[in-house]
């Protein structure tokens, strides 16, 4: 999906100014980056600390041959084998780290999981072995693909897109990596969520099925096209009047 990605580098971290509070909240990529920016440095720090301690201890406390002289002569290993107070304090620190991470996780999750606002563009995404299709019920149009040519999800930039997701046969999953968001599509169960695409662009294979769904799961993809609001309106009118996508 990285092929043809226009802005390969950093994403639009800050929500678009004109989109208002809700669009900023539904900018899943922004929310993801904020949270990952918190988790990753801590994780990297812990890994680094463990590597350093392993190397330092293996060197500092290595067994030395007795012939190495008085300075290198082997000492007897320590016999201390419990330190309940230190360990309790350490557990307290661990618990605080867990609480800190969870606090931020819950805050961000509340924003990402915000139910469909009902104020944006409504798209019904349907997954079936092994194709996607996208209905725009208010405009009365459907985006479909073929085995050779995946369909394109067309959305306006900076506006909320309320997605209703369903599956017809087996479990699929709707994943747009650029938006850092994914949701399962379970047959018989409809899930709703809101996405915001801050910038216009085209993402070849920018949407994927990420739940294994049988033979052609590998190739179950869709393209994503984000148009400026005016261009999106033109596109809708053109599609309604029967012109090609």
């Amino acid at each position, binding site marked *: 999906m990285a092929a043809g990605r226009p802005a390969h580098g950093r994403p639009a971290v800050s929500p678009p100014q004109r989109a208002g509070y809700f669009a900023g909240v539904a900018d*899943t990529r922004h929310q993801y980056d904020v*949270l990952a920016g918190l988790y990753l440095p801590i994780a990297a720090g812990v890994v680094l600390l463990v590597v350093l301690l392993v190397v330092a201890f293996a060197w500092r406390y290595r067994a030395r041959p007795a012939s190495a002289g008085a300075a290198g002569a082997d000492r007897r*290993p320590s016999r201390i084998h419990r330190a309940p107070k230190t360990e309790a304090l*350490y557990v307290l620190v661990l618990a605080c780290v867990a609480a800190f991470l969870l606090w931020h996780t819950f805050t961000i*999750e509340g924003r990402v999981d915000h139910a469909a606002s009902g104020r944006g563009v409504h798209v019904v995404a349907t997954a079936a072995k092994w194709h996607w299709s996208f209905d725009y019920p208010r405009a009365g149009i459907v985006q479909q693909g073929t085995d050779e040519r995946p369909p394109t999800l067309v959305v306006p930039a900076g506006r909320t897109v309320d997605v209703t997701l369903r599956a017809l046969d087996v*479990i699929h999953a709707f994943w747009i990596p650029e938006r850092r968001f994914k949701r399962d599509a*379970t047959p018989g169960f409809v899930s709703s969520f809101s996405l915001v695409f801050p910038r216009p662009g085209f993402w070849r294979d920018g949407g994927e*099925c990420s739940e294994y769904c*049988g033979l052609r799961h590998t190739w179950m993809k869709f393209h994503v096209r984000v148009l400026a609001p005016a261009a999106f309106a033109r596109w809708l009118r053109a599609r309604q009047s029967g012109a090609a996508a």
Partner: protein
Amino acid sequence: MTAIGAPRARAARPPRRGLVGTLASTDHKALGAGIFTTAFAFFLAAGVLALLMRFELARPHLQLMTLHGYNELFTLHGSTMFYLFATPIALASGVYLVPLQIGAGRLKWARLALASWWMIIGGGLVMWLGFLTVQGAADVGWYSYVPLSDAPNSPSVGTDYWIVGVILAAAAAIALAACVLATIVTERAPGMTMLRLPVFSWTMVITCLMVLTAFPALIVAMGLLLAQRQFGGVYTGAAGAFDYQHLFWFFGHPVVYVVFFPFLGAVAEAIATFSGRRWFGYRPFVLSLLLFAALSMSVWGHHMFTTSAVENKYFSLTSTALLVPAGIEYFDSFATMWRGRIRLMTPMLFALGFLVLFVIGGTTGIFIGSPPLDYHVTDSYFIVAHFHYTLFGGSVMGLFTAIYLWWPKVTGTLLSERLGRWHFWLTMVGMNLTFFPMFFLGWEGMPRRVADYPPGTSWSTLNLLSSIGAALIAVSLLVFLWNVRRSLRRRVPAGPDPWGGQTLEWATDSPPPRENFLGPLPPVRSFAPLQDLREQREQEVQPA
């Protein structure tokens, strides 16, 4: 001219039992070694499947196989690794070592354990026989979600074979866990109270408890799946799909810990032995194991964060809380090494490798325990990287710690240290080269369980690196197998206690006699009775 001098000492060859003698022995050592070897053979077989997948993924497009073939490969790779390798080998370690560690002469219900071995062999054969059927082996993933695995969507008989294989292996695991737990409860030597159990035996207690609570859910899930495929009407609609996922992950998460704890125990024994110190903070450690097990039984819903059908916050809370007991294991590891006398023999190298690799699996596990982060990376290569750091970096490194640590005890012969170091460093390089690029692949959007990916992106390089790493892992395993062969041929005698061990198994011959202990046992005053004796001797030689 060595011919003139005294012949080099060689360890005695064990008496040959013959095929029937081997397949029908109720001696827990023969049984443990048999199940262990069977499971290791399945490890190699599943490794070959992984190599085939990595060859296919080395370059974009399909070269070696069809989509269907690839789907069979990842299904059988995961299934074989979990049901036929990791779980059986974890329990086999307990079958062999626990009676020795607790000073017992036998395994309780040994004939049940023998039947388990046959069930594992039978289950494995049935599962793999799918490859010989017209429609091929199962291709529904090791977790076989419904409705994909129901009869209309996956009509192949290979899928039915697979279900039967899983049920057999799961039943065997339950039986083995029952045997090991019963042995610990009823066969302990005088003085061996529960709070004097060696660290490895404690991890086996926890492992067995988890098998006994989690694996029945798997048998129920699979039995109902078989009924669904034959008659329908069991898992219906979305509710049926979610019910299946709950049942499966109620087993599917704990199993990760089932195949982790025994090797954590092995790593703890190795760190203590090769630091010349007893394991630090024994009682808090035992408590933390119980907390670990309890939490890991209550996190299964994090596999379902993206379904919109579970209470994400609850499962996020329990999953994140796992960092507390895991942190305690690390604290105790470092505190054991602190001011020790560290000998970097092969078992210790693998134990330190475990500490380094598992923390990468652990911290990324906390990362994906956060639902908003999991939404992006779940079912992507990020997850593949994460759990291979826990299962390969954790369990397999711990397994090799156990193999190098107890090989002299089991065979009476020594492995080559030089080949062991080669094995270790090749594994470390190969493992990181294989799995670290997968973090980037997943982050950039490569889904799991795909045989093909678009050309002309960074994915080609990352996948190629990963495939080269997989080939390195294969080479490291060949070095290991060569070491094994060499050790069994040269038979350099190990003696009863080559490492300065701390627990009772090092107080008997290598390999142990049929009855395990011929003379009286050393007194058991703590979880490290031989270390007690050693410290007592030092005290007498150099009064403080």
